[in-house]
């Protein structure tokens, strides 16, 4: 079971109700639940958006786009109905935080969707869970039913005169539908092929209506912003990176788990103190700081604050909050191959560079790791990855290319050591592992 962990450095905001039975609406209400929605009703659209902007909350789905700003792009007037779409597709390897929200605090997600709906003038919201999260869907459906029963959803919510509905929805296994426009296609019952942008979802989204799409953690954070106040929330994080974030620590650490830490928390400290260091006291080889699609960091590069700007400056991305720790036994070629197998499997196949490029890279890495590599493969792979970058319809192509370029750049020697039929000298090598290039 997905158990909870804790650490004294944690600042529990989104996770404040975890483990307290808040999936039941009575408990949720006892823990201040739905008070934020009432506040939001009083504030009205402009007030909500102002508050969100003040909170410095940035999207937790990966790109870190300021949430208040995103909401403000939705036109006030629209001929077509507007929608809120909660992205609970959570499929980025290394990421398992939204799951805890759905399990322990589903009402916070519901409340977040309501507030987003109030902000943009939507009358309907959708909560999209990945297909594998069936038990969470059951929890979410029950929570939604409870909210309806309490008059928080449906007609005249909270006696405000406003109607608002929420539907829960399940996917059926596809990473790409986590991408916002593919997500809309999927919700409309189609193949998860991303849409051409512009127009952006805020203008033309679900069923052609203006749509706000946010990650589950983003929306579950929203009620807390109103609960503790935007200014207070902003203060927790760093400049332009408000609040806390659920970091999913995984891989070769002593105490993996999902920890809620302030934005800007030091990565090294996260691994060595919060996570208890490298499992078995081994040496650190590399860190993938924000889910599989973010470029790898070397041990000497991890003394940085974990917020969107600082990780960006370090040449990687904060991404989805999945911090994957690699110890010295890990073969980078194998790791790169496993990463590429994922993207090859999950590419929607729509555009040429991603479809063909991920397959090509996967095949080359497979051969390479099996000892069939030749010298020019290394440059070819780099060339291919660089020619996928920035050329695809949606960012999945970049997500496949970026880590590959990172591995090839930072661990070139390890690739070279695989050449000419040499057996992999890294995997399961124990203490004799070679230092990274």
């Amino acid at each position, binding site marked *: 079971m*997905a158990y909870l962990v804790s650490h004294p450095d944690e600042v529990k905001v989104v996770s404040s109700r975890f483990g307290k039975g808040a999936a039941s609406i009575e408990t949720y209400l006892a823990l201040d639940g739905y008070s934020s929605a009432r506040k939001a009703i009083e504030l009205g659209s402009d007030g909500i958006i102002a508050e969100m902007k003040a909170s410095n909350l940035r999207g937790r789905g990966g790109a870190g786009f300021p949430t208040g700003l995103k909401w403000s792009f939705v036109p006030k007037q629209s001929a077509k109905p507007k929608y809120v779409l909660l992205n609970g597709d959570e499929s980025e390897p290394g990421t*398992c935080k939204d799951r805890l929200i759905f399990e322990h605090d589903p009402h916070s997600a519901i409340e977040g969707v309501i507030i987003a709906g109030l902000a943009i003038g939507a009358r309907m919201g959708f909560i999209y869970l990945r297909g594998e999260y069936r038990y969470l*869907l059951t929890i979410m459906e029950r929570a939604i039913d409870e909210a309806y029963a309490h008059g928080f959803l449906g007609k005249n919510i909270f006696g405000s005169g406003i109607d608002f509905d929420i539907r829960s929805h399940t996917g059926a*296994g596809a990473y790409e539908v986590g991408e916002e426009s593919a997500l809309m296609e999927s919700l*409309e*019952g*189609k193949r998860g092929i991303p849409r051409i942008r512009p127009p952006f979802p805020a203008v033309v989204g679900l069923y052609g209506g203006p749509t706000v799409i946010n990650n589950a953690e983003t929306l579950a954070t929203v009620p807390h912003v109103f609960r503790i106040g935007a200014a207070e929330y902003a203060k927790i994080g760093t400049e332009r990176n408000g609040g806390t974030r659920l970091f999913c620590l995984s891989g070769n650490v002593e105490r*993996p788990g999902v920890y809620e830490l302030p934005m800007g928390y030091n990565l090294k400290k996260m691994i060595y103190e919060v996570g208890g260091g490298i499992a078995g006291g081994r040496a650190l080889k590399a860190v993938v700081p924000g889910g599989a699609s973010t470029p790898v960091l070397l041990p000497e590069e991890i003394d940085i604050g974990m917020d969107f700007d600082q990780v960006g400056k370090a040449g990687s991305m904060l991404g989805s909050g999945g911090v994957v720790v690699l110890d010295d036994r890990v073969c980078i070629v194998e*790791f790169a191959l496993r990463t590429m197998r994922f993207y090859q499997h999950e590419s929607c196949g729509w555009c040429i560079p991603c479809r063909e490029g991920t397959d090509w890279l996967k095949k080359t890495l497979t051969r390479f790791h099996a000892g069939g590599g030749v010298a020019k493969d290394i440059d070819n792979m780099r060339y291919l990855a660089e020619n996928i970058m920035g050329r695809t319809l949606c960012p999945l192509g970049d997500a496949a290319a970026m880590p590959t370029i990172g591995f090839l750049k930072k661990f070139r020697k390890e690739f070279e050591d695989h050449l000419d039929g040499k057996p992999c000298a890294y995997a399961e090598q124990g203490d004799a592992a070679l230092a990274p290039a």
Partner: protein
Amino acid sequence: MSAETQTLFSPGLAARFDRMVTLYPQRRSALVPMLLYAQDEMGALNDAVIAEVASRVGISELEVRNVISYYSMLHTKPRGKYHVQVCTNISCMLRGGNELFARCKEKLKIENRETTPDGLFSLEEVECIGACSWAPAVQVNYDFHENLTPESLDALLDQYRTQNGLADRGGR
């Protein structure tokens, strides 16, 4: 009573489908969940299921097939009673996912995407299932089993085999 005069599904599921198509601004939106639930009940999305679903959402069977083939969880051929899904993606791989997968093959005597002759188990290597911090993880049908070791995996499979199933949570 279901809107379809003849339905392949149980009365409960048929009624649920009748309602589902009304919950969205467009009927077609119910398609993916409907397929998943239909598969849960029928074991696979065979031609007859596809035909009924197509008519329920008002699209062609070809379009339904286009959608089915896109999603990895949807399938047209039956799988084992217990579909064992082993994650070998990065976080699980770092903590023994590959070993678990090898152990499954050995123990069930089947390869990836195969079903045991008795129809009890099928095996699939899957991408990240959202259990990274509790890796390595396996999903059997919809149930998560985390922090597994080859030994605890053995025990788990035995449990499925002998008890013919643990309490399933929320559908199959």
